[in-house]
């Protein structure tokens, strides 16, 4: 695959925390618009990879290109193209949903005359228009996660990074999140999502990759893959 077609390109990536290696020479290419489920046991390096892709962490060696921009050298250009949803909501509890989005909209340099419109659109997309003026601390975990997605999509990023977004959500909230992710995928966002939910990964993503002990051990299109097959492969690789 040529690097031009890739939205995300990772070459020989290594990362260690002190003497503890987390990623050991990882190579990964993700084409524009693809939805990739990043799977693996705890400590396999999934969240570290996501932090590296988001420019929140520096690699020890290797190369990361996002949309043709190199990290960490061109981090400012890359950050404008990335939206991130983590386990934590990344929201201010003492601000309303609208105020939270307005704050992050300003950080992403959305012009003031367009900001209100963008906020309304984002709230509409995640079904929180009626709760726009409620404090984020009054929201349930599911609503906070929806608002978090609105925040991540506010600046219309090319790449959406999701770090275990289903953690702590009930079944209704999970279904709402499924719908939102399908919409984001159809809208052409490149999505990388870490999760432990193999069935969901097989159903939502175009491609499943499994990280174990800091290396990529599995890379499969999900077209002919169901949850059961993925679970069997996963168990073989991680045990």
């Amino acid at each position, binding site marked *: 695959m040529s690097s031009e077609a890739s939205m995300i390109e990772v070459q020989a990536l290594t990362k260690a925390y002190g003497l503890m290696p987390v990623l050991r020479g990882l190579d990964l290419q993700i084409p524009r618009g693809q939805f990739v489920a990043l799977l693996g046991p705890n400590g396999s390096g999934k969240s570290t990879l996501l932090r590296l892709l*988001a420019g929140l962490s520096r690699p020890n060696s290797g190369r990361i290109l996002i949309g043709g921009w190199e990290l960490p050298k061109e981090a400012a*250009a890359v950050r404008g193209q990335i939206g991130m949803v983590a386990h934590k909501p990344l929201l201010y509890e003492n601000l309303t949903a609208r105020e939270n989005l307005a*704050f992050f909209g*300003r*950080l992403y*340099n959305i012009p003031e005359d367009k900001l209100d419109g963008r906020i309304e659109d984002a709230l509409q997309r995640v079904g929180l228009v009626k709760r726009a003026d409620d404090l984020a601390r009054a929201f349930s975990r599911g609503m906070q996660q929806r608002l978090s997605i609105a925040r991540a999509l506010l600046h219309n990023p090319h790449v959406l990074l999701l770090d275990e977004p289903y953690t702590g959500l009930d079944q209704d909230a999970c279904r709402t999140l499924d719908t939102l992710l399908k919409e984001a995928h159809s809208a052409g966002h490149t999505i990388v999502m870490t999760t432990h939910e193999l069935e969901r990964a097989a159903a939502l993503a175009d491609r499943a990759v499994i990280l174990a002990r800091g290396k990529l051990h599995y890379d499969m299109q999900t077209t002919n893959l169901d949850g059961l097959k993925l679970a069997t492969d996963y168990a073989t690789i991680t045990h």
Partner: protein
Amino acid sequence: MKTPFFKTVFAIVRKDLRAELRSRELVSAMLLFALLSVLVFSFALELNRTVRQEVVSGALWVTLIFASILGLNRSLAMERDQGNLDAMFLAPVDRTAIFFGKMIGNFLFTAAVGLLLLPIMTILYNLTLTAPALLLTLTLGVLGLSAVGTLLATMTVQTRTRETLLPIVMLPVVLPILLTVVRASSEIIQRAETSVWLPWVQILVVVDVIYLVLCYLLFEYVVED
């Protein structure tokens, strides 16, 4: 590509003020601590007027430093606990703009506590603590504390023992500010000639500038993972 520096700073200050006006978590805790502290000092130091004039400056600044540590810990913990520091670092902004935004917010909260403390101490200690020169000294002292405090609190907030670690790390570093600001305030309270207190204020300005430049240069490295 980057969001303009001052737009980022202004957005962060505005967000901090809005959140604080709504919750009053920071300033009320700092103010309550400061009030109790000056009350304890006023009971503990029942001295004659001359001695009071000499020690009140120390009481004021010890109170303000600990109140600012309380506020700094809370201010950065609020960012850290919900992952909002990461959310800000994800945006295409200059990281030093995040530092200045947080620093200005912390400065405003600590300065507000200091300004409320002066008339209260005027009554408690029966001394005039509202001279314009004292206000200038208060502003400069709080500016230095906020700059160093914001940098160090950003570091210590990543640790589990942040509440105890910040004062241990911060107090030795702010000693040059503390020494100059206490001497300047003390001379002003004792109504010394301008030529006596002005050199201390000038040294304070130099110390503030040095700390601001150092914090500006170091912040990027402090937040690097």
